[in-house]
């Protein structure tokens, strides 16, 4: 049990700091956004699991040789069975910390989802008053404004894509198809759940710098995923022109507003006027997707990150031999 708790603690530290740091710098993620998104989830889940697990297992060490017998002994202790030795204050402290930390993570997620749901409901209500259904496209609303904007509002009972009049007048038909394919892939693949999970993760652990890195990385990766979907419908130059068309008319208005606020998480263009965001780079100079073997390696790591802490939690004695 003791060795297991140390191992889990080491895993938690590795997953909390060096691994996300390395992954956020890695170049291959642009070549395999799907695998990269899965890996990010495994890192967050495995990290949380091993953080909680290490404290739980360590706290239970005096009570038994594996999780089941320790939990059983803990139950006997709680019900006042005199045959079980009191495990000591430090171990109780570790157990309480594990419990509180787990509750903290769950409650942050609940709070974030509740807040998001409420904000979306408010947004939808205003949309209902201000927008008109598109004549030609299903589940699409048109907002009367000159800025070319496209976005989607996910929801359980019907997600909607919102396009502005500016988008419909300023972009060519092909470019519009690219934008809409991009947006609907966000909706189809429910990227909002991903963002919600990583936002909550970041809110729960704001002192952990890598929680912000992972949120930003996942944000970029889902844009790449959506771009890939859009490229099934339109060609690369069309999609790029659409991005330029939308970005250059919005960005000036945006930066003037934001310069004071310092919008967090925005990728700032390099001084030399280069294109720094990875999403654009991979559209400008396409890179080959990862080979089958490379993908296999990444997916194996993903699975291992989830399986290892789980197995060690259930059967901590595996490491004592």
């Amino acid at each position, binding site marked *: 049990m003791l060795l297991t708790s140390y191992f889990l603690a080491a895993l938690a530290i590795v997953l909390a700091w060096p691994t996300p740091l390395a992954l956020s710098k890695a170049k291959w993620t642009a070549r395999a956004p799907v695998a990269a998104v899965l890996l990010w989830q495994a890192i967050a889940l495995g990290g949380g699991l091993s953080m909680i697990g290490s404290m739980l297992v360590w706290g239970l060490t005096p009570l038994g040789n594996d999780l089941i017998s320790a939990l059983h002994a803990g139950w006997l202790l709680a019900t006042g069975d005199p045959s079980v030795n009191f495990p000591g204050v430090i171990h109780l402290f570790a157990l309480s910390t594990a419990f509180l930390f787990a509750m903290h993570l769950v409650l942050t997620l609940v709070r*974030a989802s509740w807040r*998001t749901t409420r*904000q*979306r409901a408010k*947004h939808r*209500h*205003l949309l*209902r*008053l*201000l927008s008109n259904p598109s004549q030609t496209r299903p589940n699409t609303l048109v*907002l*009367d*404004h000159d*800025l070319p*904007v*496209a*976005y*989607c*509002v*996910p929801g359980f009972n019907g997600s909607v894509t*919102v396009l*502005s009049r500016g988008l419909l007048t300023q972009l060519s038909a092909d470019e519009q198809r690219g*934008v809409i394919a*991009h*947006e609907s892939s966000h909706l189809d693949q429910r*990227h*909002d759940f991903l*963002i*919600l999970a990583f*936002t909550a993760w970041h809110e729960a652990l704001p002192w952990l710098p890598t929680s912000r890195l992972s949120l930003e990385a996942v*944000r*970029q990766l889902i*844009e790449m995923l959506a771009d890939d979907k859009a490229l099934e419908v339109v060609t690369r*130059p069309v999609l*790029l*022109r659409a*991005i*330029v068309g*939308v*970005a*250059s008319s*919005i*960005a000036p208005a*945006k930066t003037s507003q*934001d310069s004071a606020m310092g*919008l967090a*998480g*925005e*990728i*700032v*263009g*390099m001084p030399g*006027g*280069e*294109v*720094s*965001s990875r*999403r*654009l780079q991979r559209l*400008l100079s396409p890179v080959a997707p990862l080979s089958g073997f490379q993908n296999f390696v990444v997916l194996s790591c993903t699975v291992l990150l989830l399986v290892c802490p789980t197995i060690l939690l259930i059967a901590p004695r595996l490491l004592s031999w």
Partner: protein
Amino acid sequence: MASLGDLERSVMDLLWDSAEPLTANDLRDALAARGTDAKELAVTTVLTVLARLEKKGLVARERSTRPHRYTASSSREDHTVGLLNDALGTAQDREAVLARFIGGISADEAVSLRAILDSVKTV
């Protein structure tokens, strides 16, 4: 019978388009004039809708007169800009709406990207 949501929209449209504050009676007559099933519309229904809209902060009520008169608390344009701020992530609630199409691309980048695209086009 139109749903409450549709009525909210019709009422807001009337208030936005009207230069002056309107009473519930004015609104009911205007709705009836539009001819959308509103002939049987009772003033109390309009008042219910107005109360809902007031609670949501969309409508302001003048209590000095009898009957009370209602105005839209801010213009259609202001609300649209508010929605776009949500969408572009300029508002506090960034995650309310997912995936602005241009997510994470700066003005500088847009400019240099346009230059790149133009140079490709001319070749």
